[in-house]
């Protein structure tokens, strides 16, 4: 009793195709993707032309058909049915000709690309910086607070010798129109004897106007103007005496009265803060 295989003689590979539901590692594979309308890619590597290549091709026995199954998870070894789409709409004109070298245009292409990148980088950096600073500056004082932070004082309203107190940034602001006698007296004071040595002219822009923050540097009470032993200010809380320049002369305070930042705008106005 002979089986088909034996009766057919040595079965040349072409008369038995194999159907493998789950191909083992050594089986040939069929294309896994089914294209309904496209041509099936065939293995066209065998031109039968000479005597030797024809040898053994004549069929000797019956067909044993074993079709290669498409197991859903089969691995494809030949991707000859994958079509690469046409990207010419996206490509540069300079490189679309397949017969010319692209080296000639490479400098201009690179230059253009780098220029565009650099310009975009600069623009992005500028925009980023603006965005970031806008967000962070929103955390700083708002306009109404900033509006409150400056005060404009009309100087002609303050007569000589008078000290006017204003509310500024929640603190009392003393603006004193000093007389000439006070100015010269303060200028003659020996700076080395002071607790907080500062010359009067260092504390004022125009000598006849001294602008101070009216908060005692000891513990924060408001000194009384035109009081004390030195013709300046006297803090009633602990007995600190300040002179007409706001410098501490006697008492527990350690520092001179603070001089805020101010600006003379025109002849008649000073903007403090």
């Amino acid at each position, binding site marked *: 009793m*002979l*089986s088909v*295989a034996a009766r057919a003689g*040595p079965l040349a590979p072409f008369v038995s195709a*194999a159907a*493998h539901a*789950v191909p083992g590692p050594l089986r040939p594979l069929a294309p896994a993707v089914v294209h309904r309308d496209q041509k099936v890619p065939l293995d066209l590597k065998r031109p039968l032309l000479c005597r030797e290549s024809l040898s053994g091709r004549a*069929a000797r026995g019956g*067909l044993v058909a074993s079709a290669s199954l498409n197991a859903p*998870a089969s691995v494809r070894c030949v991707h000859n049915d994958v079509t690469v789409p046409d990207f010419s709409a996206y490509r540069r004109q300079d490189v679309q000709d397949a017969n010319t070298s692209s080296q000639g245009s490479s400098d201009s292409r690179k230059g253009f690309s780098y220029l565009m990148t650099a310009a975009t980088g600069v623009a992005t950096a500028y925009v980023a910086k603006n965005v970031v600073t806008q967000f962070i500056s929103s955390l700083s004082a708002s306009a109404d607070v900033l509006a409150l932070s400056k005060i404009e004082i009309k100087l002609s309203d303050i007569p000589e010798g008078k000290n006017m107190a204003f509310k500024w940034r929640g603190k009392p602001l003393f603006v004193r129109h000093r007389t000439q006698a006070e100015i010269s007296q303060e200028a003659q004071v020996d700076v080395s004897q002071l607790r907080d040595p500062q010359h009067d002219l260092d504390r004022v822009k125009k000598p006849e106007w001294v602008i101070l923050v009216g908060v005692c540097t000891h513990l924060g009470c408001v000194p009384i103007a035109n009081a004390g032993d030195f013709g300046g200010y006297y803090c009633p809380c602990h007995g600190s005496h300040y002179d007409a320049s706001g410098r501490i002369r006697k008492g527990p305070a350690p520092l001179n009265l603070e001089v805020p930042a101010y600006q003379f705008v025109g002849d008649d106005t000073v903007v403090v803060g």
Partner: protein
Amino acid sequence: MQITKLPNGLVIASLENFSPTSRIGVFIKTGSRYETTSNLGITHLLRLASNLTTKGASSFRITRGIEAVGGSLSVHATREKMAYSVECLRDYVDTVMEYLLNVTTAPEFRPWEVADLQPQLKIDKTIALQNPQVGVLENLHAAAYKNALANPLYCPDYRVGKITSEQLHHFVENNFTSSRMALVGIGIKHSTLKQVAEQFLNIRSGSGAPGAKAVYRGGEIRKQTGDSLVHAAVVAEGAVVGSPEANAFSVLQYVLGAGPLVKRGSNVTSKLTQSVAKATSQPFDVSAFNVNYSDSGLFGIYTISQALNAGEVIKAALNQVKAVAQGGVTDADVTAAKNQLKGNYLMSVETSEGLLNEIGSESLVSGTHTSPSAAAQKIDSVATTDVVNAAKKFISGKKSMAATGDLGSTPFLDEL
């Protein structure tokens, strides 16, 4: 080697060779000859449908499960026989056996899965038909027979897309019955197989739908293509499987020449090649063709030649067979042919795949197993007169022919 036949007709055969791999096959006596015109191509789809969802396992599970153990599942089919085989390492036999049984006994053929598989019929057929030999042999059978064996192995184009799940179920119900099946294993214990068979392969009893008896008619089919090589087969009715005539025809095949025996050799010892070489100097190939079915067979010659000398090649080959029929064969030739045939047979059963095929085919046909030495003896018992008579039968029998290629110079049957 143990072989048991169950009362319901199922044959169980196993060979425990302690090999590290096991191979199990379910052989079923069904094939394209059992198709009718209303369900042509159904065996082709059945071949491709072996990994579809079954009652016990989904398609994904079957594939993944078999892959996970490094096994493989295949279906091999001829016109009369289908073989579902799995191969795996010994330790995983239970797993793959489960899938094999699911596939052969309990397929579900879900309509959407079947519909998705149908385009694959076309792809499979196109790949197979890349080789002109396949087309010629299909045409040869269609020309030689009126029914049954005339049905093609590959689905006809008009039937692609029309095979339904119900038809598949019906076909399986009527053909995959116990009495027409054989369960064969190599590298597995007989008791395991027997237990499995008794439990699972008992579901469809009876002998199912009987196939029609093949009626030989002898015709010719020519397919004109632009191919510069002409493939032609001229055959007459041959021997039935298992008859003493079959052995005589096999020996005759080797006397005439059945392909190169030396790798990259030029086949000079083949009588057919020698006689055709005298007739033409162009490249050609010629071989004796022999196939046996359960109620018929075909024997003849198959030639491949250049389009312009096709006639000379075919006529020279036929003249050689005529010379053998007139007694132009010596005992030495016959002995050489017998040795070649024996060598071929024995080498084919050296591999586990060939052995499985051999055991399975024989179990289906007769329920017994012939040992290789007994088969060799049978071959030896063929006498020269038997060979000559076989050749005479071919010469006197009604011929069938199939040819493909540029057929301008290819003679018709009545011109041969």
